[in-house]
Every structure is written in structure tokens, then in C-alpha cells.
């Protein structure tokens, strides 16, 4: 039971990292990233492949963040020229392009077979490895949340919110929002890459099938449910998401005759309904401030 709760906790915290990354991109700067799972996948595969080559995990985690951030650079630069909804579809297309490339380039990624037998994080601690991973994730998430709060309240944070509010007025004041937008986009991607590295070395077996767009929209559902633009919204929303995802597993076990395939459809339906209902009736989320 403790082991089960621990593994839920680890997954919650990985999703919290992704949601905090999206909160930077969308909550603060209104960059609509529909390709979160691409950076998550890039982080997971970067760290996974490096670790299989014998690179120590701290270095491979760092590499995961750097490669994910670099992959975000061209998309971030492209975003400067686009209206927000175009960026959305471009990033969605990017994430599918990445998934297909991972599936096809077998020489690098082992294709649909995936990468089995990745080194477990803190494997040297034996039975306590999950606990150590959990504590590390708590620290990393807390640090990220704290950093986000600091950023929000700094002059840069005010600038970022101004980018979200009214970019033209900001440029009229002589500020250049472009550089900050790209930096924030890369930072959010680096967080997703870090989440991917944690994920890869927690479950130790990654396949392209795990990196479908649904993951992106789980993260969006978290942020929208919690309330975009605030750290407590991002964290609270992730908790709600996990209650729902884990709850649906229990529901499947409790209700006879319901298969996993049915439950996958139900989960998709709930994500869809949540996105519709929250944008319609509660755009500020459960924990967010009412925005004008």
C-alpha cells in the first residue's frame, strides 16, 4: 500500500512539473503550447539513451533539460510571428512529428519496441529507491514552484504578465517581449524534459505509445481545472487530475464488466467534458483568481 501511494505520489509530482512548465508558458505569457508531450518525450528519450550508454543519471537529467529546451528554440522563434492559436496547432503537429520520428528511427530509439531496462533512479538504495525519488521530486517541484512565485513577483514577472495582457501597449513602452517569450517557452520545455527524465528512470521502460497528445491535454486539464496563472492552481489542478485518473482505475475494478478499453474511452470523455465545461463556466479554475 505504501509502495502504491508512493508511486502515485511520484506520478503526481512529474505531472506537477509539466503543469508548472505550462503555467509559465500559458499562465504567465499566454503561449499556447499543445505540444508538451513532445518535450516530455525528448527528455525521456535523451536521458534514457544516454544512461544506456553509461552516462551517470545526474548528467543525463541535465542533458534531458538542455535538449528539450533546444528543441523548443525553433518553435519559440516561430511563435513570435504567429497568433496564439497557430502556435497551438504548430506545437500539436510538432508533438506528433516527434512521436512518429521516435517510432520510425529504430537505429536510435528502437522504434515501437521502446527502450526497456533503463536504470532506475537511486537504484543503489535498493528498496528505498522510490522513496529517494519521491523526496527528490518533492524538492525539485517545491523549488520550481518557489522559482515561479519569485519570477511572478519580480519585474520580469510583471513584464511577462504584461505580455499576456497587452503586447502592443508593452512594445509602445519600449519593452521587447520577444526575447522573454522565447526564454519562457524554452524554460517550460526544459521543465517538461526534466519531467520526462524522471518518468523514464521511474518506470524504466519507455515506448512511443506513452507519448500521445492525450498526455498534453491531461496537463492542460490540470492547469485549466486548477486555474491558469497561479502556482496553487497548477499544483491543485494536478492533484485533481490524479484523483480522477487513479479514481477511474478503482472504478474499473469495482464495477463488474467494465474493461480497461472502456475505461480509456471514459477517461477521454471526461477530459473532453472538463475542457468544455471549465472554459465555459469556470475559466478561472477552482483555485485561480477571476480574470477580466
Amino acid at each position, binding site marked *: 500500500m505504501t509502495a502504491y501511494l508512493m508511486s502515485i505520489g511520484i506520478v503526481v509530482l512529474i505531472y506537477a512539473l509539466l503543469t508548472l512548465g505550462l503555467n509559465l508558458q500559458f499562465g504567465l505569457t499566454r503561449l499556447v503550447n499543445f505540444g508538451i508531450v513532445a518535450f516530455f518525450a525528448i527528455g525521456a528519450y535523451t536521458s534514457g539513451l544516454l544512461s544506456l550508454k553509461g552516462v551517470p543519471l545526474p548528467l543525463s537529467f541535465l542533458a534531458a533539460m538542455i535538449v528539450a529546451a533546444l528543441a523548443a528554440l525553433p518553435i519559440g522563434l516561430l511563435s513570435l510571428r504567429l497568433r496564439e492559436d*497557430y502556435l497551438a496547432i*504548430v506545437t500539436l503537429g510538432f508533438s*506528433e512529428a516527434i512521436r512518429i520520428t521516435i517510432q520510425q528511427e529504430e537505429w536510435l530509439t528502437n522504434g515501437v519496441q521502446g527502450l526497456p531496462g533503463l536504470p532506475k533512479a537511486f537504484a543503489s538504495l535498493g528498496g528505498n529507491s522510490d522513496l529517494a525519488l519521491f523526496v527528490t521530486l518533492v524538492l525539485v517541484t517545491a523549488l520550481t514552484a518557489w522559482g515561479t512565485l519569485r519570477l511572478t513577483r519580480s519585474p520580469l514577472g510583471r513584464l511577462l504578465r504584461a505580455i499576456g495582457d497587452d503586447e502592443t501597449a508593452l512594445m509602445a513602452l519600449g519593452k521587447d517581449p520577444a526575447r522573454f517569450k522565447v526564454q519562457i517557452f524554452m524554460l517550460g520545455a526544459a521543465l517538461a524534459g526534466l519531467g520526462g527524465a524522471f518518468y523514464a528512470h521511474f518506470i524504466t521502460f519507455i515506448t512511443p505509445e506513452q507519448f500521445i497528445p492525450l498526455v498534453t491535454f491531461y496537463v492542460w486539464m490540470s492547469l485549466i481545472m486548477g486555474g491558469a496563472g497561479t502556482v496553487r492552481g497548477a499544483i491543485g489542478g494536478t492533484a485533481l487530475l490524479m484523483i480522477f485518473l487513479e479514481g477511474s482505475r478503482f472504478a474499473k475494478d469495482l464495477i463488474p464488466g467494465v474493461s480497461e*478499453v472502456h475505461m480509456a*474511452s471514459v477517461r*477521454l470523455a471526461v477530459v473532453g467534458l472538463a475542457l468544455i465545461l471549465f*472554459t465555459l463556466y469556470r475559466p478561472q479554475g477552482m483555485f485561480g483568481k477571476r480574470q477580466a
Partner: protein
Amino acid sequence: MTEFLNLLINGLIEGLVVALPALAMTLVMGVNRFPNAATGDFMTAGAYATIGLQLAGVPSLILAALIGALAIAATSAASYFLIFRKLARQPMVASLLAAIGLGFLIRSLISLFAGHDQRTFQLPLVRAWNFNGVRILPTDLAIAGTALACLAVVFILLYKTSFGRQLRAVADSADLARASGIRARGLLVSLWLLVGALSSIGGVLLGMKAVVMPDLGWEHLIPAFAAMVLGGIGSPVGAVVGAVLLCVAQELSVPLLGASYKLVLAFGVLAVALLIRPAGLFGRIELVR
């Protein structure tokens, strides 16, 4: 050479089919100003509705497809009335997220009731005509003909009727259109009826070319969007030209890259088009930035 011709013909036919959702998206984009990400799932719903009607005993595929198109048109108009109309004053991200949500909801209902098995339409089996190695399937000709007929109907509606004139006026400037006495509400419901029917028929035609499964339309969302951008957002002619160009390019790339990379190519075309010419071939730049 014959291989090239075969790929070219296949690309042309697929392009005419993808033109239908691309046109549906560009019409919504021009008027409601958001990319309707549920377009793909309207297509899937159309294909499944038609298969369901065939299984229920509707004798002709054409009749089943027409009833299906009516049902999806009604669904589409209802979704406008219940969701997107209310989000019109919100930032467009709200409409886009709701459209993604609607697409998920439609797909989940399909997979819940019809399962994930691949399905096919009940079609008469026909032999391909062979002209010195250039193969043409009569079914493909029927698909291309139907797509062309649908496009013709939409263009007549857009450019020869008062509905189309009013719609284009609203697309140009909603305020000016209102000032000159155009009632937007009824017009927009008609628009969403039209794009629902268009997507539905597009879905049936796609399903006739390949197989029907719950991801059928979703997998064509990025190509349809790329076609729309390539042609120029809000431009109906552009959507059709963009779809044909994109699909021909996709087919011709198959010998070099393999069929799996078609979607990646569509993404590449999308990114390059946005980078070099965001207004597309026939579009206006202010809609993009």
C-alpha cells in the same frame, strides 16, 4: 514514370478529399476566428454514422452518407449554439480548448460504443482499370467526383447566394455586417450546419479510401490545418488548392521517406509556410499575426 503517375493520381484524389475539412476549417476560421480542432472528429463521426446506417439496413451508401451528413450537421450546429457562441467574447484559446475537448468527447463516445476495431463500408468490389501500369480505381473516381461536387455546391453557396454574400461580409467585418442589418445568429447556425455536413462527407470519403477507425479524423487534423495555412487562412479557394498541393507532395514523398512520414511532412509544410509566407497563397496577413 508509371509509379510517379500512380502517386500523383492518388495524391490528387486524397487532396480533393482533404479539401473538404480544410474548407470547413477555413470557413470557421474566417468567421469565428479560431481553428475548429473538432473538425477531424466530425469527420470520424460522419463515417461511423454512415457505417451504422448501413448496418441498420439502409440499402445505398449514398443515402446513408446523406443521412449521416444531416446528423453531423445538426451536431455541429448544436455545438456552435451550446459552446462556441458563448465563448465568442472570450480569448480564442477558450474556443480552441473547447473544440479540442469536443473532439475528445466525440471520439470517446465513438470508441465506447463502436470499439477500436477497423471497419469498412459495404462497397461493391471493383477491379482497377490498368492503362499500361497506371492504375485507376473506379471507387477513387467516385470519391473524387463526390468531393468535387461538394466543393462546387459550397462555392455556389458562397459566391452565388445571399447566404454566401452575408457570410463573406461577416468574415470581412462582423461590426460592419451588423451595421448593415445582417443577422449574425441565424447565419452562423447555417454556417455550422454547412461545415458539419462538409466534414461528415469528407470523413465518409476518407473511410472509403482506407478504413474507418476512431482516430480517422484526428489524424487528418494536422494535414487539413496545414492545407488551410498553405492556401491562406479564410480563403476557400486557398484551402482547396492547399489541400491538393499538400497531398500530392505527401504522396510523392512516400518512395523517399516512407508512408509513416506523411504527417511529419504535413507538419514541415505547415512550419515552412508559416515562416516564409504566413498569409498563404491566397490569404490576408492580418488574420495570422
